[in-house]
């Protein structure tokens, strides 16, 4: 699997995801600077976490209009898979590649902690190494992760199985007390219509090392390698 990671001014978890991709695929991903109009041929494009443009105006708003994003949209339309983590998820919603929006956390505070996620859909490029309903433990670290969408969009996503991950308790129940940001329906990650684009707020890349954060996030990268070779 050849992956390209797009880096923006203010990205700060690109190294984390580069390491995770490399551990899973054995290949070093290409890092593409946001100002470049071309993304080299690849099997997967990744938007990393961070604070592109300082999160000024709205998280992800300015990055969504960079030259590399134009190219990303073109490739995504051709079916190249796209993964957006944290700030990457925010950029994907701002760019219109995923529905809904990410607002300020309900607590109004940045939150960094380990959370439990329930894998809602294992039939995808991104999640095939997990069982449906499996609970995994990965960290979150964000101030604007409060997912929202209008009722029709939500119903459509729920009906079509486009909710990828939900915040749950350690034993897999949804509970407002374990929802770190107030997201509607406890949504942590979503797919696009064709399940070729995934955006999620938590950081599976920071749970791919047995000595730091555990291995629960490794399944996502293994899924991608298995699907994309």
């Amino acid at each position: 699997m050849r992956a390209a990671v797009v880096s923006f001014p203010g990205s700060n978890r690109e190294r984390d995801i580069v390491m995770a991709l490399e551990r899973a695929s054995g290949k070093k991903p290409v890092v593409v600077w946001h100002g470049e109009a071309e993304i080299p041929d690849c099997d997967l494009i990744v938007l990393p976490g961070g604070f592109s443009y300082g999160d000024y105006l709205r998280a992800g708003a300015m990055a969504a209009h960079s030259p590399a994003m134009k190219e990303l949209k073109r490739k995504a339309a051709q079916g190249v898979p796209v993964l957006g983590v944290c700030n990457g998820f925010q950029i994907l919603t701002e760019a219109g590649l995923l529905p809904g929006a990410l607002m300020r956390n309900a607590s109004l505070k940045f939150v960094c902690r380990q959370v439990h996620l329930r894998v809602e859909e294992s039939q995808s490029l991104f999640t095939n190494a997990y069982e449906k309903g499996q609970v995994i433990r990965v960290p979150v670290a964000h101030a604007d992760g409060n997912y929202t969408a209008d009722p029709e969009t939500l119903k459509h996503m729920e009906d079509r199985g486009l909710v990828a991950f939900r915040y749950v308790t350690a034993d897999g129940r949804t509970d407002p007390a374990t929802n770190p940001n107030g997201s509607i329906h406890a949504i942590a990650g979503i797919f696009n219509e064709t399940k070729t684009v995934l955006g999620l707020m938590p950081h599976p890349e920071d749970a791919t090392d047995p000595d730091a954060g555990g291995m629960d996030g490794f399944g996502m990268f293994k899924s991608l390698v298995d699907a994309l070779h």
Partner: protein
Amino acid sequence: MKATVHVTLKPGVLDPQGQAIGHALSGLGFAGVTSVRMGKFLELDLAETDRAKAEAQVKAMCEKLLANTVIESYRVEIGS
């Protein structure tokens, strides 16, 4: 030509910051504040001198960048 833009959350979208401010106001003894909605205010200096063209330009800016129309609405005022 100056333009001002007000960006606010659409009615019905939860505004936790507005709620927190409302809570703080009642804590300070300002009774009777039934709702607070927080937004952004932007001032732009434009080279354009035609009002109608300026307004069209700024509206395009709002649609494309300044507001996220999934959750936000905007209002444009063109000054002198």
